[in-house]
């Protein structure tokens, strides 16, 4: 195994034993980036020089005998909607193409303090709006498992980078499934934590009441380690919850005897790809094999989650994105041959030229939903539905420890396959969206393959039930290590790639 293929905890162990240096790990990852980035295209900005500097610094500290945490010296990528001081933060939009923030997101500061080596900024759907990373204003990121397929979205660059070994782990953001769905498409672990567990300060807002930051990792233990580093109260975010944060690795177990697992029938009905259904049902059976008590249940308001989300998220987005007006920073439209636009024209041209079609569509939807005369019919009604969805979850969690479903109704799809029809694209997030509306945590982990493409199992828990999620996911992962499969990119030996995956999808180890 090459270093770039290892997990953070494996690399940390080797660092601890002085078998390798942080610089060597960093070199391995950047060599991998140079080798495969032209196929995957995950990065908007690569920060190689700063990464080496940080790695050497960590090595120096180690030589001086300073204790280093489990993430020290480990290369990590950041979705390009996390503000990074001195490093441009584009949100994959023309609007912020040259925006260099004078501050870093709290999660970035926390990881930096934990010794993380940042590799760069990862491609995404523009302002995190999309499910395929096709709405990026710059370029499309490809799925490392099949370069003709999308990596999912909107954290598609982050998921692809981790799956392809271009980062050991990454941070993404999840507003309606943007961590879990690409994690599912790229065959890695993705966690959307409880709303308020991780500070949103410095995350460029899409829909503030739904956005949450979380890790994309190669296995469940890494997921717990990264969550340890980023969770906790932040005085800069009044929605972040005060209180102590547990050590999430303490939940990792292989025994889930007696854990009650609910399987809502509404998540296995119409629209679910038969191949995905089969794989996910096998995964549910596996949980039962491991001693969990699995039972079918009902989520009566499931069908309303999607329309509810597509009112609330665009409403908040229309307001959050109003600040991009060309007045103070970012893109400003200028007339051809000198001349001046008046204020209104400058606003309109800037926003017409600076935003892509999906962002404009959602701004218009949100503006409409909030406007007087429509507020009660749309926004207010959506808020009421949101309450009903929360109540559905509350009822389920009175009965079950976790609830499981497919992460996405389909395997990774081909470029352009859904891009022409927004409504079809929106269905990609049908199973992940209820979680954001309720503010609860959910995790996606690899649970098999359909025609060589990864499938994810979504596990949901009550608020602050991350420990339970990690426990169930870890037990599953130990018994069915699909996470060990690696996609085969050009020039790689077959046994590390697809053939291995095929074998695993038949259930063997």
């Amino acid at each position, binding site marked *: 195994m090459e270093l770039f293929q290892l997990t953070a905890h494996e690399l940390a162990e080797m660092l601890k034993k002085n078998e390798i240096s942080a610089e060597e790990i960093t070199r391995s990852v950047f060599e991998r980036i140079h080798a495969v980035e032209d196929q995957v295209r995950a990065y908007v900005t690569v920060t190689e020089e700063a990464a080496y500097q940080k790695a050497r610094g960590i090595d120096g500290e180690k030589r001086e005998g300073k204790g280093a945490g489990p993430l020290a010296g480990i290369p990590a990528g950041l979705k390009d*909607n*996390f*503000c990074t001081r001195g490093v441009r*933060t584009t*949100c994959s939009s023309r609007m*912020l193409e040259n*925006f260099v*923030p*004078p*501050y870093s*997101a709290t999660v970035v500061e926390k990881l930096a303090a934990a010794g993380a080596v940042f590799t760069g900024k990862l491609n995404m759907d523009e302002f995190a709006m999309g499910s395929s990373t096709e709405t990026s204003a710059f370029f499309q990121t490809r799925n490392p498992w099949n370069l003709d397929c999308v990596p999912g979205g909107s954290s598609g660059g982050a998921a692809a980078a981790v799956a392809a070994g271009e980062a050991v782990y990454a941070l993404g953001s999840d507003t309606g499934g943007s961590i879990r769905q690409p994690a599912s498409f790229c065959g890695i672990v993705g966690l959307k934590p409880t709303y308020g567990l991780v500070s*949103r*300060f*410095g*995350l*460029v*807002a899409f*829909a*503030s*009441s739904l956005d949450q930051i979380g890790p994309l990792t190669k296995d469940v233990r890494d997921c717990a380690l990264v969550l340890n580093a980023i969770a906790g109260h932040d*005085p*800069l*975010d*009044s*929605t972040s919850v005060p209180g102590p944060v547990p050590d999430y690795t303490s939940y990792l177990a292989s025994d889930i005897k007696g854990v009650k697992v609910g399987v809502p029938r509404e998540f296995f009905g119409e629209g679910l790809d038969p191949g995905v259904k089969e794989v996910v049902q096998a995964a549910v059976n596996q949980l039962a094999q491991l001693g969990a008590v699995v039972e079918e249940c009902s989520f009566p308001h499931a069908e309303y989650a999607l329309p509810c989300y597509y009112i609330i998220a665009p*409403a*908040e987005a*229309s*307001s959050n994105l*109003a*600040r991009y*007006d060309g*007045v*103070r*920073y970012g893109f400003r439209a200028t007339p051809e041959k000198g001349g*001046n636009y008046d*204020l209104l024209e400058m*606003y309109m041209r800037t926003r017409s030229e600076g935003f892509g079609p999906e962002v404009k569509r959602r701004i218009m939807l949100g*503006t409409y939903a*909030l*406007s*007087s005369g429509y*507020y009660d019919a749309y*926004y207010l009604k959506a808020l009421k539905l949101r309450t009903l969805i929360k109540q559905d979850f509350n009822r389920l969690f009175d009965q079950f420890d976790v609830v499981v479903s497919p992460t996405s109704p389909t395997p990774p799809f081909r470029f352009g396959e859904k891009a022409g029809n927004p409504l079809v694209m929106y269905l990609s997030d049908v199973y992940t969206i209820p979680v954001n509306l309720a503010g609860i945590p959910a995790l996606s982990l690899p649970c098999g393959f359909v025609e060589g493409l990864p499938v994810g199992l979504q596990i949901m828990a009550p608020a602050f039930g991350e420990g339970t999620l990690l426990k169930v996911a870890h037990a599953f992962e130990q018994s069915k290590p699909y996470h060990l499969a690696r996609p085969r990119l050009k020039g790689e030996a077959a046994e590390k790639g697809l053939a291995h995956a095929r074998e695993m999808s038949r259930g063997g180890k």
Partner: protein
Amino acid sequence: MPEYEAVIGLEVHVELRTRSKAFCNCPNVFGSEPNTNVCPICLGLPGVLPVLNQAVLEYAVRTGLALNCEIASFSKFDRKNYFYPDLPKNYQISQYDLPLCRNGYLDLEVNGVRRRIGITRVHMEEDAGKLIHGEGEKADYSLVDTNRSGVPLLEIVTEPDLRSPEEARAFLEKLKAILQYIDVSDCKMEEGSLRCDANISVRPSGTDILNPKTEIKNMNSFRAVYRALGAEMERQCAIWGAGDRVVRETRAWNEAEGTTVAMRTKEEASDYRYFPDPDLVPIVIGRDFVVRIREELPELPEARRQRFIKEYGLPSYDAGVLTSSRPLADFYEACVSAYRDPKTVSNWVMGEFLRLLKVFDLEVTETRLTPSHLVEMLELLKEGTISGKIAKAVFEEMFQTGKRAREIIEAKGLIQISDEEELGRVVDEVLAAHPGVVTDYRNGKEKALAFLVGQVMKATRGKANPQTVNRIIKEKIQ
């Protein structure tokens, strides 16, 4: 023609004088270089989040209680969405359907008529920045100063209970006094820390018709509010009198012309798309918090006025003037505590002190004259060291220079001459110089005495004790 009365409601914006801004740690000060008191949060840069300054909440509750409002136990912030270059996020954090304070009132007394003016609501919001427009022919630019962005504001909205421009002005004066008493704002209209818009309609006196109203903006002093409302009232009366209808619109006060003028009418009604701000958690206020703030409230102007009447035996008028501002009332009480003649102190504070403040355009807190200055001077006056006439001159010099009374009178030799021997010599000289006048007096011409006293005063440059001089002359002539 019927007699008309006005129906006036006010919307007052008050900048709170907290140390830092509403949602970040930037200093909340006036008059800094443009764009120096700013950070990513008050600039609304991508990704940053507002966090409520607890002092804003405390000031707002204090204000609500002083205005007899109910304090909501559950309140929240909303976003008011509109595009404007001085509004960094293109939405303003404000409060919409659940304001912090509601249903208050303020009692007014104008021309002997006592009336209760309803306060509809008091809510918190952030201020916007300021545009500085280019001047001159080629100045097709505007500059943005964001120092004011995020400064905490209270919006105070009254019921349309005011019936005349006089009442509107009296209300504002009273409101200002209260806000200063509770120390939440400096209320400087010229610095924009107190701003007022007025809604006004007119109707035949005594009816309860609701006619179309106009909203008047751009008034930057209490006098301007008074004049603008008067001018607008007159305009509306003339329209109704001529059988026409007043149009509902926004008008601006033109100070120079003394008239209100229609502002550009908006093409369409504004739609602010209010919705709860998801970045700020709802405000839940416990009873303990409200009780604590209520207990900490200082004595308010009305209560203090009553106390001045009772405790110092002042006339109602004096008590009203002295308690109209907290610094003035504090000044008065500091003097009285050391010189226990309340009416004399009141005469000096209301007379010379207020006169000089006006002449030099100063606030009570900006003068160099302290209560101990006045007390020392009053003592010198009482013991006869200086005359009342000289006292006025001394007071003015103390006011201007900050010197002590004793220092001034010593330097200028102004000490009153009461020494009978010395005065006797001067009287002898005067009598010798004016034998004709002496004769007149002896012949019963009373006025002659005043002339002789005047001559003595002149010879002593006003330092002679007039009573003593009077007596000595009479003794010498008889």
